[in-house]
């Protein structure tokens, strides 16, 4: 039986073939934690009895979740992170630099086939760069700081074959929501989700990051895109000897195989309170919206705001609706500032602010009131996720979010993009 991509990546690392279910121990190339999980990782490091960080050059901290701090509790947790980083020579990405899953690929030397862990479930985002990336807890992070290694169970794999090209107004967010809706919130539990097919080359790196970001919402261990010309513009492949490891064998044993025709997809939303509660936007059109959030590690990149600005610049944000736009990093913010998108967003009535995870998980900037409805481009719509269990969250693409902000009700964005 042939190998899946994840089997090949582990074989490449270990120098021997591996089978799904096998436990392997591998060196971790890069590990990062943030202000939500890092402080507990420091406690766990101390609980483990560790005294020295094995290799600080492979560890990063990012202060992005409650950033800048909204209260003294968070401030003190961040101080703890900074103090430990200083004592152990660990690089910190500070307040305003951006969300970890955006800042790491922008600033670090990513190589295809790397093994990356993050103390955040959305670390899977980095699989877009043809590498293995997965989320871990604080004790596991402490173990990586202690030994530089971690154990993994080699996962089974799900193959998602893509053909065709998305139509205007339909985004990669609609694709990943559709997949999650089809397989369910535990449909890929423990699996490596491997995207393949001709349709892949029509998706930009930002679009691929959106797709990989949300594989955890169907329980996956990681998501991975193949290595192609688009990937090579974003990674350092200079030391790469064997490109075939990013292509599965034809007779690879996939636990699940799915096919999607990109041109047949339509805008969808995940309705409250689970990400797999996916419905076509058409079914929910007309539902009143109080707040729209465009941003997060899922959809806070240049292309996301470009389409939002294009839709919003026609009529602006509907009076009475709050539209919050947060670029995923300072670099994204600057690019949008320089190409005039920020001007368009602010002129349209959006509240644009510095990079933070804030509203996505109900920490600060945009806590919902009781009975309020939000359309959000983030990744989770769990009860209470945006800070209030009495509110409702609909997850959508930036196009759907912008269309809904301009109409004040959930709106299919395709009517705004005719002729694009």
């Amino acid at each position, binding site marked *: 039986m042939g190998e899946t991509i994840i089997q090949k990546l582990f074989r490449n690392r270990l120098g021997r073939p591996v089978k799904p279910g096998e436990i392997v121990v591998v060196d971790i190339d890069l590990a990062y934690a943030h202000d939500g*999980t890092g402080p507990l990782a420091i406690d*766990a490091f101390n609980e483990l009895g560790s005294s020295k960080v094995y290799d600080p050059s492979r560890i990063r901290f990012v202060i992005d979740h*409650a950033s800048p701090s909204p209260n003294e509790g968070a401030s003190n947790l961040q101080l703890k992170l900074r103090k430990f980083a200083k004592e152990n020579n660990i690089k910190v990405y500070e307040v305003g630099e951006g969300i970890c899953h955006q800042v790491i690929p922008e600033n670090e030397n990513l190589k295809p086939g790397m093994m990356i862990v993050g103390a*955040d479930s959305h670390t899977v985002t980095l699989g877009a760069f043809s590498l293995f990336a997965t989320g871990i807890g604080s*004790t596991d992070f402490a173990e990586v700081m202690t030994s530089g290694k971690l154990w993994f169970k080699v996962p089974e794999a799900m193959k998602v074959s893509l053909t065709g090209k998305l139509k205007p107004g339909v985004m990669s967010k609609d694709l990943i929501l559709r997949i999650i809706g089809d397989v369910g919130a*535990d449909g890929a539990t423990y699996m490596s989700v491997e995207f393949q097919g001709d349709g892949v080359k029509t998706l930009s790196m930002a679009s691929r990051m959106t797709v990989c970001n949300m594989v955890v919402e169907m*329980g996956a261990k990681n998501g991975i895109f193949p290595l192609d010309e688009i990937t090579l513009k974003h990674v350092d492949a200079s030391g790469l000897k064997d490109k075939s490891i990013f292509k599965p064998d034809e007779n690879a044993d996939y636990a699940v195989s799915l096919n999607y025709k990109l041109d047949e997809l339509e805008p969808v939303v995940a309705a409250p309170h689970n990400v797999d509660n996916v419905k076509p936007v058409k079914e929910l059109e007309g539902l009143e919206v109080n707040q729209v959030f465009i941003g997060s590690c899922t959809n806070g990149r240049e292309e996301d705001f470009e389409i939002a600005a294009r839709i919003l610049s026609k009529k602006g944000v509907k009076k009475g609706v709050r539209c919050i736009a947060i670029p995923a990093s300072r670099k994204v913010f600057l690019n949008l500032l320089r190409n005039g998108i920020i001007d368009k967003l602010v002129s349209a009535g959006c509240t644009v602010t510095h990079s933070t995870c804030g509203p996505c*998980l109900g*920490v600060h900037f945009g806590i919902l009131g009781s009975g309020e409805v939000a359309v959000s481009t983030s990744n989770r719509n769990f*009860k209470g996720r945006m800070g209030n269990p009495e509110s409702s969250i609909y997850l959508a693409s930036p196009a759907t979010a912008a269309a809904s902000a301009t109409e004040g009700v959930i709106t299919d964005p395709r009517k705004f993009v005719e002729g694009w």
Partner: protein
Amino acid sequence: MILRGKVWVLGDHINTDVIIPAKYKFRTGDFKELAKHVFEDLDPTLASKISKGDIVVAGRNFGMGSSREHAPRVIKEAGISAIVACSFARIFFRNAINVGLPVIEVKDVNKHFKEGDIAVIDLEKGIVKNETTGVELKFSPYPEFIMNIMRAGGLAVYRKRVQQIS
């Protein structure tokens, strides 16, 4: 290792945001304080009703969502001695083992328990019994190295003991 406790029955897809809302973990790192908010968005009264040793029985995909290790730590701090569910989300499962909170997968377990029943779990034998109804269900016991982590009460204590011996 035998655990006996009063049962709380929860549903499918219990996520880490309802286990411990993110807003609290950005206010304090004190787990006694955080434990007051366990399961708050599911049922605000639940935290005050949990007694030490109680057992959670749940449906599919328990612990889905965030990687926050606060979730199993808060559940443990609140007094819950074990979670028996039809299935678990991957990161939660691994975090729970690391912090010494027994998490046990038993097919259809939620069909065999009601709130207030008494559950008895034998981790070595792989048996969970509903003492109230007499129903016995089987599961695959943990491999020995995970049993040792459980007996120690978490990876940290286990690792220190191993280091002391060697």
